[in-house]
């Protein structure tokens, strides 16, 4: 039996005296694509932020390959890629310079050249255009080009399809499927229907705390 990549046990998150979710237990194995569902304000982003270690407002335990994330932080972060609501792209810089920074921070985390990655997300020819000249969708694509660069095993994507056109969504879905097939895992939130087989859905509402 292979060890699960991520194990959440009895997770509970409270915000402004409102319980977003409690008793949330989830096991994510290699090859899983997990879609977290729930209406606006149900705590999807909070959960992803907890999993990306930027938020510590929770009780319960998160295990990364059997060891607590809190004591294996660097190890875990080294295997994590997070694309959030905010693209994390500097508008004053070109896509190439932005990705250069990303590759520098995660040195050795480069599966393909930056040109290739930008080509894959359909930004061929925009490598050296300052990002404030790009549209919202193109900015998003610069952020998503990281998916092609990183060898991280865990992908956490918060609304990755926002502002992306249909063809782009299709490409992304294929990329996620490939990533999962290669032994990685994807956790994402989206309000769109996914055309992927083997998507596991987690309804955050099922873990809603009792009404106060």
């Amino acid at each position: 039996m292979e060890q699960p990549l991520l194990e959440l046990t009895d997770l509970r998150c409270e915000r402004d005296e409102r319980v977003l979710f409690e008793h949330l237990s989830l096991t994510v194995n290699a090859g899983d694509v997990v879609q977290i569902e729930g209406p606006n304000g149900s705590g999807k982003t909070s959960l992803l932020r907890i999993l990306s270690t930027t938020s510590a407002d929770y009780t319960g335990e998160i295990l990364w390959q059997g060891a607590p994330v809190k004591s294996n932080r660097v190890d875990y972060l080294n295997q994590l890629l997070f694309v959030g609501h905010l693209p994390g792209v500097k508008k004053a810089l070109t896509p190439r310079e932005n990705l250069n920074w990303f590759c520098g921070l995660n040195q050795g985390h480069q599966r393909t050249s930056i040109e290739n990655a930008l080509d894959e997300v359909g930004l061929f020819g925009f490598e050296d255009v300052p990002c404030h000249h790009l549209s919202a969708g193109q900015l998003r694509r610069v952020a998503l080009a990281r998916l092609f660069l990183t060898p991280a095993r865990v992908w956490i994507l918060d609304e990755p399809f926002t502002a992306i056109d249909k063809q782009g969504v299709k490409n992304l879905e294929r990329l996620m499927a490939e990533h999962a097939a290669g032994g990685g895992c994807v956790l994402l939130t989206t309000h769109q229907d996914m055309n992927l087989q083997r998507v596991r859905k987690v309804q955050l509402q099922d873990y809603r705390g009792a009404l106060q």
Partner: protein
Amino acid sequence: MTVFEQQQFATAAPQVPGVGAGFMATLRRDLLVAFRHRGEMANPIMFLLMVITMVPLGISPESAVLATLAPGMIWVVALLATLLSLDGLFRSDYEDGSLEQLLMSPQPLFFQVLAKVLVHWLVTGLPLTLMSPLMGVMLSLPAAGYWPLMGSLLLGTASLSLIGAIGAALTVALRKGGLLISLIIMPLYVPVLIFGSSAVGSAIDGFPMGGQMAILGAFLALAVILAPLAAAGALRISVNG
């Protein structure tokens, strides 16, 4: 679509990246951003020049009066110019999400903060120091004061940037952090100001200024070690909220 082969994750986890490479990446990126916003870079210098130009007009053009004011005046204005530029240190990174990426990169936050503060100093403190002899001339600073002024500013502005980073990190998530930064940081700036301007004053009066310079150096050494640590902790708290 498959430009790269399916990788086997189980065999080799990626190596934890080097600290030096991460430091250089952030340094290079922030310098580039600063270079693209050249106009904003000139703000502290313009502020300094304007205030120093007003002083003879507002107080007295007499060089004896100006000479006594000069060391303190230049130091106060340099301090305020640094304070004004602090708000943006982490703000833009916070707003576009790169701060999040920084926090969850497998890099020690200490060196990332240090890189950002170094860039801040290179675009504010260093130009202020290099411009200070010109301010000295405008306020008829006695000849003995020029080198001490530059030396004390060189050490002092670096401490100011470092200490200021703590305030900037604490207030990054607040929409109106400007005033709060000043309140948090001012008390910590006072010792730097006192020893900085008194070093110049002593040199002009013909006394040794080694003591004050040594203390400024000690402040800087302490700030290099402690300020990024405090700022990194503050950033984690701010982004958490």
